[in-house]
């Protein structure tokens, strides 16, 4: 790891100020992606601003048909929350499948979505449940937040503070994890809102989370795994690596979407 200078701010405002003064500063939340990346010398921030312990970023509140999760909330806290399990069980199940127990006790929701790894789980939840992201400057619709591989709508120095997930009528998440890394080869979140609107969001398959309108239309007409028979995404723009070809991932999208609908019930 290259040299860096560590800062521990006492508030979001102080964190933003520290970040703006740094030559090439980065926010450190749980560090479960950033620190391994720095160890490999693939990242070399001049300064680290540690927002992992900021009280104003912590906590889960459920009310008014919404589950609101502070950006600094750990995956393990979401996975272990009885409130989340009661309101959106698919969200708790998704958090329980991220990485491993030790990663889940450090990694945060805000860190995951700000990094926007193409194979991360949380982007599927944010888009698949139609969540709203709140930052230090504004609110951003989940559909507009993820803009490309490791790219988001966040401006320089903008800090994710919380994410509000509307409680759906039904939701399910199914993931085919890479057996070594536990990242999603393909993960699919499906939901049916209280207004009947259906969402199908896919992570792991492409450069960035995406929705599948053909599946959404089919499920809106008939909410059952069988409704997805014969509906497949094109392999043209999907990821291909040693773990699976683009065609393999395209097939997995339909398989995981069906399993997600079955899980949602």
């Amino acid at each position: 790891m290259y040299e860096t200078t560590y800062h521990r701010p006492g508030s979001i405002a102080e964190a933003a100020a520290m970040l703006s003064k740094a030559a090439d500063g980065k926010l450190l939340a749980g560090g479960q992606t950033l620190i391994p990346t720095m160890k490999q010398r693939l990242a070399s921030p001049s300064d680290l601003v540690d927002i992992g312990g900021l009280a104003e970023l912590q906590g889960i509140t459920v009310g008014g048909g919404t589950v609101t999760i502070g950006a600094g909330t750990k995956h393990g806290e979401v996975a272990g929350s009885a409130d989340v399990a009661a309101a959106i069980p698919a969200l708790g199940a998704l958090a329980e499948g991220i990485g491993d127990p030790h990663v889940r006790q450090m990694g945060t929701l805000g860190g995951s979505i700000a990094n926007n790894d193409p194979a991360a789980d949380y982007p599927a939840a944010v888009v698949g449940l139609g969540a709203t992201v709140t930052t230090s400057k504004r609110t951003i619709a989940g559909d507009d937040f993820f803009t490309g591989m490791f790219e988001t709508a966040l401006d320089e120095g903008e800090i994710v503070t919380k994410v509000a997930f509307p409680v759906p009528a039904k939701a399910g998440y199914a993931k085919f994890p890479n057996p070594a890394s536990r990242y999603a080869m393909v993960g699919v979140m499906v939901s049916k809102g209280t207004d009947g609107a259906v969402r199908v969001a896919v992570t792991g398959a492409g450069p960035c989370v995406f929705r599948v309108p053909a599946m959404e239309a089919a499920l809106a007409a008939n909410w059952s795994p069988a409704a997805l028979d014969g509906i497949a995404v094109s392999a043209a723009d999907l990821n291909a690596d040693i773990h699976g070809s683009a065609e393999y991932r395209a097939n997995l999208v339909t398989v995981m979407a069906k399993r997600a609908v079955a899980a949602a019930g």
Partner: protein
Amino acid sequence: MTKVTMTVNGRSVAGDVEDRTLLVDFLRSNLGLTGTHVGCDTSQCGACVVHVDGRAVKSCTMLAVQASGADVTTIEGIGTPEALHPVQEAFRENHALQCGFCTPGMIMATVDLIKRKGTDLDEATVRHELDGNICRCTGYHNIVKAVLSAAEKMAGAKAAAE
């Protein structure tokens, strides 16, 4: 250099470290607590698991400065050679180790697992919860047996105490 202070195994410690120093290196090099191992150095294997403020974390994926002010427990803080922790005893009884390199991390992960999920565990839960700890000797079978046995004994001890 930055001065860090923390409580390690109940003892207040301090040291001067570079900001990029990993917690595991501080524990091993500055404090001489070499029971915590570095297996992969890529956040995969779990040999470096310690408890920070009661949570099991990979100490190779946390900076020492991040842990400044925290309460840290390492394998040296769990049981003694004369009086092993029930989890250590269960690993010994069930032959849950061969070379022993992964064992400190396995023990720390197991203690955390029983704390979070209780003593009423099934095999599927144990296998899922050991996702973050790699063993290249045992094939995991005896480790799973040891975890289940430790949970059972700890449940019995708790019932006896009540």
